[in-house]
């Protein structure tokens, strides 16, 4: 006899069910993995202490926000972490239009008891805003993933933005993801997963140390087919403003062409990609070597 390996039939839970972890258990064992749902059962002030670790103090400083009080310069950090929810959402919005977010970070317990990074937005408040998130009839486009505002997208593209960006970025993605590692370690969690919204997002998360749960081969295929002689390269025929013949040379150019549906050329769509970052470990993935942004 010897020990072979066969495929498991059921998904594996990577941590205990959040509802089964009491604060007492968690306080008594520094290695016990903590879920968002468990933190959310704490008092508002205790939650704020935990979630404070998620926002880099220098980001708050740049906006004139006191990192302890979470207020200042007319801005405030909003915390949504309902006691019965496995989700936490932190945001800093335009004081004059709360739908205009400058910073959003949302984490959620997932079905295997891991933690997902649902959303990260870092928009420069002083940069021009592009109305790509609402179509001409005022309906939400979900950053151009459901419907599109082509006029605003074209303006955003010309201004040097990537798909799904409403303003130029604030920077700080490295700092926020570093803080996220600190938060995860605080919670005795070892990894975080996410679904990249765009090709640019996937490329940025690669640079920040993420690997792929799904879609690494797709990213390799995209890079190969954008090379001269490839099918995606050939499909950059200027048939729309987002398929400029030079677009293959840059991350942003490729991203706009992909956002425009160019992957249909190779029988694919931008969907089902999933990435994972192990705390303290950089996977070293680079699907677009020596990329120009």
């Amino acid at each position, binding site marked *: 006899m*010897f020990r*072979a390996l066969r*495929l*498991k039939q059921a998904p594996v839970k990577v941590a205990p069910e959040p509802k089964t972890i009491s604060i007492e258990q968690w306080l008594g064992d520094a290695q016990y993995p903590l879920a968002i749902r468990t933190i959310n059962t704490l008092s508002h002030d205790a939650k704020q202490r935990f979630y404070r670790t998620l926002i880099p103090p220098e980001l708050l400083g740049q906006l004139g926000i006191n990192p302890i009080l979470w207020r200042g310069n007319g801005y405030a950090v909003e915390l949504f972490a309902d006691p019965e929810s496995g989700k936490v959402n932190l945001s800093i919005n335009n004081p004059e239009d709360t739908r205009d977010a400058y910073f959003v970070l949302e984490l959620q317990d997932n079905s295997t008891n891991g933690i997902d990074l649902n959303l990260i937005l870092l928009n420069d408040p002083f940069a021009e805003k592009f109305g790509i998130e609402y179509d001409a009839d005022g309906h939400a486009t979900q950053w151009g993933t459901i419907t599109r505002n082509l006029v605003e997208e074209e303006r955003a593209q010309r201004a040097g933005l990537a798909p799904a960006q409403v303003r130029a970025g604030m920077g700080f993605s490295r700092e926020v993801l570093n803080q996220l590692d600190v938060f995860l370690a605080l919670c005795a969690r070892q990894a975080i997963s996410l679904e990249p919204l765009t090709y640019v997002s996937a490329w940025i998360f690669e640079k920040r140390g993420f*690997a792929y749960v799904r*879609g690494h081969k797709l990213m390799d295929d995209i890079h190969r087919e954008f090379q001269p002689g490839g099918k995606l390269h050939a499909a950059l025929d200027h048939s729309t403003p987002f398929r400029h013949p030079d677009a293959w040379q840059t991350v942003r150019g490729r991203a706009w062409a992909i956002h425009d549906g160019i992957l249909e050329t190779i029988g694919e769509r931008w969907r*089902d990609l999933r990435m*994972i970052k192990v705390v303290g470990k950089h*996977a070293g993935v680079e699907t677009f070597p020596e990329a120009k942004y």
Partner: protein
Amino acid sequence: MRDTFIFTRAAELDALPAFREFIARVCERLKISSELAFELQLACDEAATNVIKHGYAGMNPGSIMLELRAQLNTITMLLSDFGHPFEPVETDAPDVDALLHDEPTTGFGLYFIYRTMDEVSYYTDEMGNHLVLVKNTGKE
């Protein structure tokens, strides 16, 4: 001495030569014999092929992360993936005679790994599925 090297590629058969080259490069840097490096390469080939063919079946393949950790007397090869997890089962050893006579047989890859590595273990956690292979290097 303790050192760690990480190399990640898509779970595709095309990536196997890159994994082999990475192992050769690291072993050369660590002054590990070419015989031992060859055994690590073969073990990696077998394990990665298993992940590529079965672990990521039915999905757009994700990554395989290969990590080599050198310690004083051992080298540890950690192969991590994020596909379907496996589970250990007790089974008969594969029929080596059948293999020698070109008859269909399965399970030989892992059997080979057990024969060449000094320690073999497998587990799944928050960070993925991990096959841990340890080889004594005999260094003092």
